[in-house]
């Protein structure tokens, strides 16, 4: 598979839709085996490993989250949270067929709600994609929140 710019854009939209529709196992399958989801704590944070992040998770940790969200005794999901992504048109930052590196940049607004409480977040998603067995997969999804350093209430789903 040789992805086009439109393929990358379609992928980013489809990924957000899977989260909004709570199709988490399908969403998880979008990650490469060595894929990471990273939400930094600090503005312009460079270090993934030696400082605190809000999330910095490999596929195993993401699998824990996905299974937990449907768990019988997951009390913080009784009732379940809902979320909605509003994405700007993803910008294609890099298409490098030779090295199999594809990068997009997507400003977003995100709403997550449970009971009477609604959380609104805004920020930028940076996807680094690759092709595995003929399909696009996520190698890194970096989500920078515009208020990354604010005191948050629970963020339970996936921005």
């Amino acid at each position, binding site marked *: 598979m040789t992805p086009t710019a439109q393929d990358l854009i379609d992928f980013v939209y489809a990924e957000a839709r899977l989260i909004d529709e709570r199709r988490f196992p399908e969403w998880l399958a979008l990650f490469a085996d060595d894929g990471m989801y990273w939400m930094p704590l600090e503005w312009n944070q460079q270090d993934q490993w*030696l*400082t605190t992040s*809000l999330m910095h998770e490999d596929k195993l940790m993401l699998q824990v989250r996905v299974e*937990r969200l449907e768990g019988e005794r997951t009390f913080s999901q009784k009732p379940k949270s809902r979320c909605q992504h509003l994405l700007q048109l993803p910008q294609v930052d890099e298409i490098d067929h030779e090295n199999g590196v594809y990068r997009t940049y997507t400003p977003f607004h995100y709403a997550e709600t449970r009971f009477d409480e609604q959380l609104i977040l805004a920020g930028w998603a940076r996807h680094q994609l690759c092709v595995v067995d003929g399909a696009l997969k996520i190698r890194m999804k970096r989500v920078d929140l515009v208020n990354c*350093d604010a*005191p948050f209430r629970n963020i339970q789903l996936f921005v």
Partner: protein
Amino acid sequence: MNDQIARIRALQRPGEVHRDAYVAPDVFDMEMKHLFRNAWVYVGHASQIPGKGDYYATQVADQPVLMVRHTDNSVRVLYNRCPHKGTQVVIDTQGNTGKFFRCPYHAWSFKTDGSLLAVPLKKGYQDTEFKSSCAAKGMTPVPHVREYREFIFARINDQGPSFEDFFGDSLSSLDNMIDRSPAGRLEVVGSPLRYAHNCNWKMLVENQTDTCHPMVAHESSAGTVKDIWERQEEGTKKPMVVELALPFMSSYEFFEGMGIRIWDNGHGHTGVHHSIHSDYSDIPGYNDQMQAAYGKDRAAEILNENRHNTVYFPNLMIKGPIQTLRLFKPIAADKTLVESWIFRLVDAPDKLLERTAMYNRIINAPTSIVGHDDLEMYERAQSGLASDGMEWVNIQRLYEEGEGDEPEQIYNGTTEAQMRNQFRAWEKFMLMSMEKEGTS
């Protein structure tokens, strides 16, 4: 004042606490005015302000304060308020102010010990009593400040006990965390996680030594890790995250055996004999560094002490073996801001810091599934306490005669003795300045 004393005394009876201790705004106001002013409260760590003029703004009790490194290298804690019109002199969390603070409103300036340096157009005060005004004294210092191995604490009221009397032998937990650095020093790394809870601050503090909740409340998170781990092929190398999360699912027997130690003045810790932090993998090179720094026996002594959570009453918790610190900042009777900080063990391998950073984000973050489990319980409790069907909270578990009679006592790890210890200290520090005011 007598009314207040009676109000506070009526909030406890043996093994029970009245719900007003958690939900009533007047009780919260008394906590801020008395308890949090009579106790030694954590301000910050010296590594946050390494250079002269470096400052860090925070709160002690309900008071906006800043700590700053003065020109003589000492750490000063000042109320963050211009003596002129009240403007907060700094509003960013940290920075460097140089040799003096300058209020952004009318350019009054202050040395970093708070004393007034200059006022523009000073002759306008010539024919006034300005010199004897309180404004002329500059930014007010918090009167009692103590730096202990770079941890900075402050006490606002004069009534409270000395630093040594307040903490007693509980400082051994702080010592152990610091001694785990081959250089005997810690450094704050990065910003804290900030997590807004709609519950009373004491629920969070009590939960630090609540050993009967992990296997229940965290079944959803740590239990899922366990499920997934057990489905892995045999021989799979145990990832760091699994190593950190699995002990949360330990049995009641494990937590009973862990033990709880209580000290005077509301301090205490879980994990006397072992803890959920005892069985982490060795980090290559670290043991050698520790032995080189301390000698074999002392290094082993330091590393074999694996205390779980140490509560420093009223609102601080540290985890020595994983180098995290949590500060429970009271905002209102039903609002608490939790800050979770991490430290680098100076001169130790980076892998230790990597483990610390991971622990902090998987356990303490507003995006953490373990955090979600806990917050859900606190907030359900805060809401549930509105019920008039029952007005008392029960903390009777494993009560024994003589609790609090000695400066240090050790109990079965599932006791609620530390919660009772906190409430003994709570009443003591609440009443301390009320009685002083009442008799004067």
